[in-house]
């Protein structure tokens, strides 16, 4: 038997919950991809804006005509707050994962599903606040697409909470699923963060530009 210098790694931990984990990085690259998607949507928004003298344009496709078509602020602002609350809940779950605190994780996953359903429902009201249908003009197309793409992320994150809950509600929380819950929490941070920017552009952009 030959002897050879060796680095014995058997005593190293067999999982990591934070940025040392490959999954944390995989999740990060997903968020980079999604951020590029929204950056391009914003670039398109501002590019199309150059074609208009009035932004948003007046609504003349249906009677009565609407001349002040700035998107209404009420429901969208409420929805922004709901999304920020979800981010706070995510922070709570995130901290609890390091302690493997099953109770907090379960409650926060439940809240993510509940508040996720609320924000998705409110998003459908938000579409109406634009005064346009997506096929009215290019302004409407780009705004609907921004709202719709973000809606898809809300749906995905709420469903991800549902999927994780099917495990954590029934079985003991182990570090592998704690890591998954952490990644979901990071996903919600990103969803909330990107929405702050998108909300600012979609709802205040027309008023300031």
């Amino acid at each position, binding site marked *: 038997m030959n*002897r050879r210098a060796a680095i014995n790694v058997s005593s190293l931990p067999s999982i990591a919950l934070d940025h040392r984990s490959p999954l944390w990085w995989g999740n990060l690259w997903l968020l980079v991809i999604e951020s590029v998607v929204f950056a391009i949507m914003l670039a398109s928004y501002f590019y199309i804006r150059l074609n208009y003298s009035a932004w948003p344009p007046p609504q003349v496709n249906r009677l009565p005509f609407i001349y002040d078509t700035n998107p209404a602020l009420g429901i969208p602002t409420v929805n922004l707050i709901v999304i920020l609350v979800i981010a706070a809940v995510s922070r709570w779950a995130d901290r609890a994962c390091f302690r493997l605190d099953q109770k907090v994780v379960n409650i926060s996953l439940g809240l993510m599903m509940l508040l996720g359903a609320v924000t998705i429902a409110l998003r459908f009201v938000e579409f109406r606040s634009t005064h346009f249908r*997506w096929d009215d003009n290019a302004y409407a197309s780009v705004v609907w697409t921004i709202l719709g793409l973000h809606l898809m992320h809300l749906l995905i994150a709420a469903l991800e909470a549902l*999927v994780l809950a099917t495990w954590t509600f029934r079985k003991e929380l182990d570090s592998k699923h704690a890591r998954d819950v952490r990644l979901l929490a990071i996903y919600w941070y990103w969803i909330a963060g990107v929405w702050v920017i998108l909300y600012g552009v979609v709802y205040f952009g027309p008023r300031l530009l």
Partner: protein
Amino acid sequence: MNGSALTQAPPIADSAERIALEATWTRGTGFLGWLTSTDHKEIGLRFIKTSFVFFALAGLLAAMMRWQLAFPENNFLGPDLYNQFFSTHGTAMMFLFAVPVMEGMGLYLVPLMVGTRNVSFPRLMNFGYYMFLFAGILLFGGLIANIGPDMGWFSYVPLAGPEYTPGKRADLWSQMISMVEIASLVGAVEIITTVFKQRAPGMSLNRIPLFVWAQVVTSFMVLFAMPVVMIASSMLTMDRLLNVNTHFFNQAEGGDALLWQHLFWFFAHPEVYIIFLPATGFISTIIPTFSRRPAYGSSAMVLSLIATAFIGFGVWVHHMFATPLPNIGQGMFTASSLLITIPTGMQIFCWLATLWGGRLDLKSPLFFALGFVAVFLIGGLTGVMLASVSIDLQVHDTFFVVAHLHYVLIGGSVFPLLGAVCYWFPKWAGRMPNEFAAKLSFWILFIGFNLTFFPMHQLGLKGMPRRIYTYLPESGWSSLNLLATIGAGILGLGLVIFFGNLWWSKKYGALAGPNPWRAGTLEWSTESPPPAFNFQNPPSVESQYPLWHDLPDTPVITGLGTEEREVLVTALMDATPDHRYSIPGESIWPFLLAVAASALLAGIILHPIAFPIGCVLCFIALFGWFWQGSSPHRPIKGTVAISTSPAVTT
């Protein structure tokens, strides 16, 4: 260079560990095992082989186009078929050959070169392969069904819009783009994460092989470029679909046709570098091996790669010089297009310096590398010419551009790729390619290539436009076109010899052994072909060329579990051992997800209702994927004890 330290050292573990590793890492047998494979070597080779099939099909289309253009007023292909052929040729070569083949090379080689046992997310890799395969089937299936795209590989609106291209041809193109870009994106995520987190202990940033650097930089470009074309093509689909009817590119409703060009080229110029940078990685690997010395200016080369990647995102408008852009903008983009030659030039000088200071071992891979330098230089020079607005306007949309882009893409990418295939073939197949046949195929390819594409410069300067299916005898373009077609025949012959050689060598070539080229990087430290687990004892490294410079007693890794597919995760910057990571095994769900996602994307061509249905199917597949992988985590202690090896715990 004191021999190959790592290969000479006998494995320290007894065969019991090897048997246990084989039992754990070998995939299931039969069709299901083949379908669900998560071995990066198998999927990587599958990417490479499938890409070369699409390369051959797109090449046949090119051959038929050359035959059509060989004589004036030829009517071998009609205008409609010709349009479909050049659009499918360009689309397939860019999306189904050049990008995936580089991704396949990365997936095969990166884990071996960084000394780990598999990529970070092997099921995701399996999913990516099927997305790519289905995209290719969709494109060529569409061509056979006479709904092949016919508006060019860039699909400009308004030509590709609902008004001028009714029917399904443009929808098929734009949806197929989304499918194939999903494959590129997951490949990029795999490669970056594997390099970030799974490098052999000791492989700090300055010791990462140059090919791996090239793959990482390319993967970052993919992350920032591919989403753009997915969004743009989705906008195009939404504009075109009867029940959706958005107006992104519809000038009448406030949209903008130039928005398409901006979005497309913001993706498509980086795309050129996504194809070219891995090729520079091949060259930076082949030249040091056959110069018998480390690459000259390693840090400068890495910085050049990164600089190229950054500047590559700032030159897209030079594809749009013929559109009404402000002069100041055109000037800026001329400047940035000239700027990007500097890092590339720096790399070329580093290669020349490596060759200059080495003792050349003139084997076939080096022939391709040297051929690349010559051909790519010509392409680069015409690139500098085209970066100037005045020249660009003069030759815009002529065969001069066709000549330029083929010099850059075939010279800059296919020649290095063929060299790389020769170089790593012994690792894949365990047998050597025939040197004489490889060199013969190189010379035939070199002559055929130049004969095909060099006359096109002249044709372009004489005013022959691109994308015309025929021309009149009085135009004076006949003889050069005939010459180009003869060249294409010679080029095809060279390819037949090249691949015939590989086919023959796989059966009858001389046995290769672990390191036939006496190279310095880690993939040569294991058997050829490597076992399912890559390394019986994963290595640690102390230099950039461990097989040349590391001492024979450089420690290896022991203590990884053999019951599960464990790999060692190391720290991002200095690659110190951090924790063990259990990699998931085979599953049918990635394949089912690829089926569901393809049904979603391809179904939209027929009716928007495919979108919600497809989303539900994708969710079911993702849920199955999660559920199958959701066994609880239990700390694993079950490693095979190796009492004889002294443990050096870091």
